[in-house]
């Protein structure tokens, strides 16, 4: 019983992490039709922000995470203005541009902070939490934080005028612009929100993961698998897919190891694509 409880707890936290990363990516794709490869690097920048503010400057942890969210959100906004806007909805061009951005950000971080040394971020809440198993508060925080962040995103998209306008322009940009929601404005907003989610994930994971310039790579892979299965642009589907893959990864990691888990995740995605090219949840029923 203890064992199963532990597994559920771990699965919950892995799912939260996947959801936090993938929902932002999915939102950006839904509105802008850009597969942002640099999303993983945005996550990395978020982790570095927390490292600088929390580990080096001794700011409170949640303030550091908040700043990381803002910094990465603004980074997304700037890259939309400078780069992605010029792809003009062309999926291939936007995608290749984001690949270019990946390497610009990686080299920038390597040149500023170096690649060799570890960037240890101490746990802000190292106390042990006993609930269905044992974990540190630091890890557990991920779950309520994700619920709060995704919940407020959900509330924003559903109950605020501008949030609803964003959803409208994801579904039909022309009709939305007739009602005064310019595609540029919605693209900038989506990019800010989506990147901010990546920043939040990076900030929250910084004390748990090792912080280095290439940490985004493993994450973007999983995020891609999740949004393919969930149906890109479909936030609800992405959420379901993150839960499925979070638990799948946890179960396989418990019995075998995490590399096999990655392989199985990819295999599941390929098999699903072979059977249902449109993803687990159909694209239309948003």
């Amino acid at each position, binding site marked *: 019983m203890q064992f199963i409880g532990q597994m559920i707890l771990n699965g919950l936290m892995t799912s939260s992490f996947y959801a936090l990363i993938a929902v932002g990516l999915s939102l950006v*794709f839904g509105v802008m*039709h850009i*597969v942002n490869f640099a999303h993983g690097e945005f996550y990395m920048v978020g982790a570095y922000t927390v490292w600088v503010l929390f580990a080096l400057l001794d700011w409170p942890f949640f303030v550091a995470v908040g700043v990381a969210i803002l910094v990465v959100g603004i980074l997304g906004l700037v890259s939309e203005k400078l*780069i992605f806007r*010029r*792809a003009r909805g062309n*999926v*291939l*061009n936007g*995608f*290749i*541009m984001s*690949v*270019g*951005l*990946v*390497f*610009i950000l*990686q*080299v*920038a971080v*390597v*040149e500023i902070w170096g690649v060799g040394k570890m960037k240890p971020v101490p746990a802000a809440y190292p106390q042990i939490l006993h609930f269905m198993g044992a974990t540190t508060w630091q890890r557990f925080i991920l779950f309520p934080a994700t619920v709060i962040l995704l919940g407020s995103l959900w509330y924003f998209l559903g109950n605020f005028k501008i949030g609803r306008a964003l959803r409208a322009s994801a579904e039909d940009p022309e009709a939305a612009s007739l009602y005064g929601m310019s595609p540029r404005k919605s693209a900038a907003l989506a990019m800010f929100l989506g990147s901010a989610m990546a920043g939040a994930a990076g900030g929250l994971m910084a004390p748990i993961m090792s912080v280095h310039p290439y940490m985004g*790579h493993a994450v973007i*892979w999983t995020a*891609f*698998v999740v*949004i*393919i299965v969930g149906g*890109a642009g479909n936030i609800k589907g992405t959420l379901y897919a993150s839960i499925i893959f979070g638990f799948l990864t946890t179960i396989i990691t418990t019995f075998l190891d995490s*590399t*096999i888990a*990655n*392989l199985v995740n*990819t*295999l599941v*995605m*390929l*098999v699903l*694509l*072979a059977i249902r*090219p449109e*993803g687990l949840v159909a694209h239309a029923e948003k």
Partner: protein
Amino acid sequence: MTAVMIALPFVVSGYKVDFLTMLMVNVILAVSFRVITTTGGWSLAHVPMMGAGAYATALMSGNLGIPFWFSMPLAGLVAGLIGLGISYPLRRTEGFAFFVASFAAGEALRLCWIRFKIPFGGHQGLVVPPPMLVPGVQWLDFAEAIPYYFLTLVVTVFCLMIMHRLDVCRIGSTFKTIHSEENLAKSMGINTARYKMLALTIGSFFAGIAGVLLAHRLWAIEPDQFGFSTTLYLLVWVVFGGTTTFSGPILGVVVLSIIGELLRPLADWVPMVYGIIIILTLIFLPGGLESLPSRIGIPKGKFWRAQITVEDR
């Protein structure tokens, strides 16, 4: 052109010969990538496919002692078969799903080389013996740079001839039709999914050949060589050169490799420079270098094609 390439190794220094050999390997890689892009799919598993060829030849010539002339096509075949396997789930996906799924599939392949130490050697990779062309002949040592250069030259010219033939024949035109007018192709009874699979298989085969040449030149291979930064280089070459003509990718590889050589003192910055080049190319010169002549007003093949589309509308 070929005559110049034959004369070159006797003129330039030893290090440059190595550079030219690598250049030709990259030319095969970029041109084989174009075989796939003509159908409209930009496979991000292409560099891992090159790795598949390299690993296959390393295992075959290292462990089994198979001579080069057999191991090279066999390794290409292995890469082609893996490409075929990946292409099955990808055959109906479009645009974004194609990139993402091919990326994940390629990374999964790379992860296999890291995870399964037997026979792939994990992070350390494998040692590749120098190529055995004819067992027993000692006087021609292909571990030397210049003989290997000529071997690469012969293989490259051969591969390019086949791929050029493919590009102008019926299959090549079908690939292009699938890209530009998928519904028209379907209504004419062309099985587009099958042709896409064919393109990925052929492209992967030649990527495998490039991998064989790379492995025997470097004598050692490891998973990191076939990682995502190599994919970035490939994308930059192809985008910078352009993909509508056969010579576009070749142009891209040659020009950017020379720029890369000039930037050698700043090696750490090269990925960033490439990233900036790719973004600027897409913003200011979306057709790549090959579109430059028609852009500055020299009428070329593109000119009349543009007119036809105007008449159609």
